[in-house]
């Protein structure tokens, strides 16, 4: 009797153990391949050994530049330190390191969205004098003027462009061919194509967009608004444009895609969208170009051979595409105690011709001519996309307004708030931010 009870208790305990361990099933990891080129990195040896701390998030597009810097410039008594970190971590640490009179990091990976805000607050150092001094040595005249403009605030360059990302559309060519479809060039065509794929019955939700409510959704709205030819703020009058008809149209167009997307789309970031393409549960996705390399690799994507690429559609047939140009680059914090000339040699070396060449196809380097139509399966699409991207808004209020209005944008796209009410809220929030920039 007692033995039977013990046996029963043991079975129950083991069942509980199995339940507790079940979530570990399916766990996996994917480590990005280290892509480090050895490039010339010339600087006078410092009198004392020096350590330089680099803050840069890990991604297949940024890693080649960071790894090149660490590998090529750790010499002559200089140690370049870089710890792995994700993008959200980088954002937090950037705020913290720039806050006080001294910081933890000497070189920051930065992006055009926040450069004007940091520059206006005097948190990062202008680089024009250093570009003038070392430009010829590192061939910096080959860095794209358009990308330099994104990193420029009040006429001064605050980050040396490294690489850019723009939206690219990936689609399943086999599905399109089977149904006699062509890559859509407008949202109307996108709805039409998605409807036909849905009707064919193979793929329930053909469109996959990163619309994560806590981050990506604001980029999507910005891209739609930009494609309709409207900025968040009229830079001349400093008036928000959320009361314009295009602000409502952007919402309507994005909402019109919902029937063709997974009902949980507002929980999907870019890796989740990639996963939908890997699984074959989506036939069309629009993401930043830095995510496309993964789609072309058979080890990730069993549909790699059937995946083709095109520029994203425009929202309503205009010249500007549903797109956002995001430029990454290197900045030097104003509070670093390290020699700015030494630091500039490091960042200039990392965006040199060799490292830029080695970064292709994972990245779209800022150095002109690095990417040609033959560079990768999606290079032609990226080239077309970057040429038709809406202009950036390099103003200190842009990132702050984006953060403020993001929950409202999510509520409107998810149908929790009517469009007109959402527009009014966004206009009010944006005016609140702009009031701090007299």
């Amino acid at each position: 009797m007692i033995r039977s009870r013990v046996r029963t208790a043991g079975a129950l305990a083991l069942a509980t153990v199995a339940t507790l361990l079940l979530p570990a099933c399916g766990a996996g990891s994917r480590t990005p391949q280290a892509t480090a080129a050895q490039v010339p990195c010339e600087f006078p040896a410092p009198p004392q050994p020096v350590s330089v701390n680099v803050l840069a998030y890990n991604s297949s597009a940024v890693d080649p530049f960071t790894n090149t810097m660490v590998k090529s410039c750790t010499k002559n008594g200089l140690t370049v330190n870089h710890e792995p970190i994700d993008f959200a971590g980088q954002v937090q640490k950037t705020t913290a390191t720039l806050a006080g009179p001294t910081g933890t990091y000497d070189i920051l990976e930065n992006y055009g969205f926040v450069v004007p805000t940091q520059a206006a607050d005097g948190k990062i150092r202008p680089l024009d004098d250093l570009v003038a001094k070392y430009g010829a040595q590192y061939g910096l005249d080959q860095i794209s003027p358009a990308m330099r403009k994104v990193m420029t605030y009040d006429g001064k360059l605050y980050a040396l462009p490294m690489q850019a990302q723009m939206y690219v559309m990936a689609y399943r060519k086999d599905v399109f061919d089977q149904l006699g479809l062509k890559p859509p060039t407008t949202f109307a065509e996108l709805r039409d194509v998605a409807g036909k794929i849905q009707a064919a019955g193979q793929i329930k939700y053909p469109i996959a967009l990163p619309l994560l409510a806590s981050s990506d959704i604001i980029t999507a709205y910005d891209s739609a608004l930009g494609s309709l030819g409207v900025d968040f703020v009229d830079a001349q009058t400093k008036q928000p444009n959320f009361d314009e008809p295009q602000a409502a149209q952007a919402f309507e167009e994005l909402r019109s895609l919902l029937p063709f997307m997974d009902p949980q789309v507002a929980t999907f970031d870019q890796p989740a969208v990639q996963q939908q393409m890997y699984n074959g549960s989506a036939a069309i996705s629009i993401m930043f170009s830095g995510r496309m390399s993964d789609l072309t690799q058979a080890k990730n994507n069993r549909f790699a051979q059937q995946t083709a690429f095109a520029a994203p559609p425009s929202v309503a047939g205009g010249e500007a595409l549903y797109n956002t140009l995001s430029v990454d680059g290197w900045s030097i914090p104003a509070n670093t105690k390290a020699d700015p000339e030494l630091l500039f040699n490091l960042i200039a070396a990392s965006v040199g011709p060799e490292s830029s060449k080695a970064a292709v196809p994972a990245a779209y380097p800022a150095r002109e001519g690095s990417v040609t139509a033959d560079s990768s399966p999606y290079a032609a699409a990226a080239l077309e996309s970057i040429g038709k991207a809406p202009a950036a808004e390099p103003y200190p209020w842009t990132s702050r307004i984006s953060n403020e209005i993001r929950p409202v944008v999510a509520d409107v796209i998810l149908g929790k708030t009517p469009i007109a009410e959402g527009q009014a809220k966004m206009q009010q929030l944006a005016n609140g931010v702009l009031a701090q920039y007299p």
Partner: protein
Amino acid sequence: MRRREFLGFVTPSVLVMAGLLVLPLYQTIVWSLQRVNYGEAGEYVGFANYATALADPRFGQAVLFTVQLTVVVVIALIIFGYLLAVLVNSLGRSKPFVLGVLLVSYVVPHVVGGAMFSWLFNSNFGGVLNYAISSVLGTDILWFADAWPNRVMVALNTLWFMIPFAMLVILAGLQSVPEEILEAARIDGAPTWRVHWHVIIPSVRGVLGFVAIISIMDVLRTFDQLVALSPQAVQLGNESVMLYVFNVAFQDGGQQLGLGSAVNVLLIAIIAVMLYPFIRGIAREARHA
């Protein structure tokens, strides 16, 4: 014990407590009355941060969600922790092995455990449980986009990683129940459930109270697992108080340290209110001891 010896033993603890508890608490209260950015001196704003938080419907919803989650999870923790402890207590030689394995979910970092747990329900990553439940019910459940399924998932995950703690503490309590009392109850013919209800549970009441206190404090500070399990938390009304602090005060390099501090002070008040009945019970027992 001499006065010098007493001071020698007590002083290090007092210094550590003052440095790690009192000073941060003092600074939090000071910042809650200021507008503060990283690396800059604060500017006194009175109770403006408290007014901002209390006027925000999102804060009210975050408090409601957090308190509901705490009540449900703590009750479940005590019930299932007790049952599990009884099961483990009745094991023979396999007890150390089972105990070791049971503790795995407790030591896994919450955000990692949350990510693994989310894959069980995410069809994009296999979603074993989602597949099984959908097959049985014949309908798709939106675990991440519908409020109540998402709450169930969050509660199950919280239970999953906290139950080993509850089980371990209650197990220690069970082992301290005198065998003679149990033997007497059985000789008197009491069935098993009455032995538990009238003999064992009253004997381990203090232990159950301790589990409740620690669990209430832990669940009220729910944060990490929501990052993976509730990416749409704000829209679903499934934002915990700590996630609200992060989203409002720190997300995307935000610098509202004053507002974040005010919400933390309010959270301390909520914790104190929820712990009051348990602390009063313990104090009463201590007086009667």
